[in-house]
């Protein structure tokens, strides 16, 4: 048995497809992106080495507006952590209390996560439509014609209008993770606390929340990195417009690559995104450790 399972050739054959696929599509491209980011390159033909110029331009050029795009995605991250997560947590705690219809509520709340973001985006385009969208129709019907807006076309409202469905779609995802955590709290712990006369709120505060802290950490990391990477809904709703009001790093990256053929700059944005995602993940983990 041991001999059969230690055969080096077999080990290699079993691992080779996974290694090829994983290194070829995930690992090597990270290095390649980093490499491309030092060049001025239109995708095909000669590359010109320009050192850190792309990075300098990215952070200083107002025409590209990377800092604004970054600010938008960080704002989304803040809203996600302080609005979406608390709502998800409240739902998870409530559903975790053996409420009637628990499964039905859970399944419905999770449903938007499974629907394609393009479909969700198309639906919200219709909801926001200035002439026939149900939002404006509703506002007119209650006599607030003056509140009706060209939601996605107005520089002032576009960002908010894009954030609402983005935050809404993933409440169910965070709820599910947190709910799984709440359900894993040993029943004895709860009962012991109840016997000592703890109220519902106290049980949540002193038993459940500390117990599910690792899952809260994961949720916060996903909320922040997900916001930094957000693309689909914004692409469908505004593609970064009007006048870059809803630009985020990903939409900027796609525009650099496929509208302006600036592959070096596009790679630079990709590299910044990877650094930011890993950086924030580490930072959040460190903050949670600090608290212990």
């Amino acid at each position, binding site marked *: 048995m041991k001999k059969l399972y230690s055969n080096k050739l077999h080990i290699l054959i079993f691992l080779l497809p996974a290694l090829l696929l994983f290194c070829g599509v995930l690992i090597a491209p990270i290095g390649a992106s980093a490499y491309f980011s030092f060049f001025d390159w239109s995708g095909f033909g000669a590359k010109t080495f320009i050192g850190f110029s792309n990075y300098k331009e990215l952070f200083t050029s107002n025409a590209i507006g990377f800092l604004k795009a970054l600010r938008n995605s960080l704002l989304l991250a803040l809203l996600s952590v302080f609005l979406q997560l608390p709502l998800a947590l409240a739902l998870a705690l409530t*559903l975790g209390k053996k409420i009637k219809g628990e499964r039905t509520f859970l399944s419905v709340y999770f449903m938007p996560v499974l629907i*394609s973001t393009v*479909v969700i985006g198309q639906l919200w385009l219709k909801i926001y439509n200035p002439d026939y969208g149900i939002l404006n129709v509703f506002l007119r019907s209650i006599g607030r014609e003056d509140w009706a807006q060209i939601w996605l076309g107005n520089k002032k409202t576009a960002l908010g209008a894009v954030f609402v469905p983005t935050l809404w779609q993933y409440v169910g995802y965070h709820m599910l*993770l947190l709910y799984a955590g709440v359900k894993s709290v040993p029943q004895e712990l709860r009962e012991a606390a109840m016997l000592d006369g703890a109220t519902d709120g106290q049980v949540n505060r002193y038993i459940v929340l500390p117990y599910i802290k690792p899952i809260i950490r994961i949720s916060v990391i996903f909320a922040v990195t997900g916001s930094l990477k957000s693309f689909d809904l914004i692409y469908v709703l505004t593609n970064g417009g009007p006048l870059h009001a809803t630009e985020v790093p990903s939409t900027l990256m796609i525009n650099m690559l496929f509208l302006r053929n600036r592959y070096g700059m596009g790679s630079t944005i990709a590299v910044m995104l990877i650094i930011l995602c890993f950086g924030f993940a580490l930072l959040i983990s460190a903050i949670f450790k600090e608290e212990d």
Partner: protein
Amino acid sequence: MRNISKGRQIVIYIGLILWMLVNLFPVYWMFTFSLKSNPEIFGENIIGLPREWLWSNYSSALNTGKMGVYFLNSAIVAIATILITLVVALMATFALTRLIWKQRKTLNKFFMLGLTIPIHASIVPVYVTLSRLHLLNTYWALIIPYSAFSLSMAILVCTGFMNEIPRELDESACIDGCSVWGIFLRIIVPLMKPAVATVGIYTFLQCWNELMFANVFISKSSLRTLPVGVQALSGQYTTEWGPIGAALVLATFPTLFIYIFLSKKIQDSFVAGAVKG
């Protein structure tokens, strides 16, 4: 719920039901407007059930809007991705949990890096490579990257299940004269059905809904997948909403259909992918 007053219970239920409506309404609205005419959608009957059920919206979406083609493309890409992911992940997991060699823990951690790498990281190099290999505008342009990005999650799930298969089974098969391949194919793989289901569902959802790669790597309209196809269709039918609604329903119903029957399994697969990553 024992020690909560009746009043608070009612407030809680009202809150839960309101949030349920917020989640159900867009889907309900999508289904109803996919069967309505413009005058109904635009004012006469905005949120009610359709007065006249306009199935012709669906034939417009399928014929003029080519939703049938996009649907088929999405299905081909999804099925091929699932098969490749499963075969590759099962093989790798076998080596990572059963075969005996030194660095297997390290390599397992290495594969788990994939759970955190954003797809943005690889878009430029993968695009350039695909174009050099003349694979842009083929199904492979999506199948290969999708399989790669599903791999970490698949290995994670498979490892959990494979570790639970008792090693005595391998021993006795070995004594009976089975080769490594025999043990893998006849003993291990048949026992991995639950893992196969979890990985299959999760992978399906990831590639069925993916937009960024599908949008960039495929420009030929006959090869578009549903998310890109729906985008194209809505550009085509800017003034007629019925066919767009029909297209949205066509793109969504397979997912919802699976969800109705396998909601627990789907939810578990999402939790498994997140909590261990």
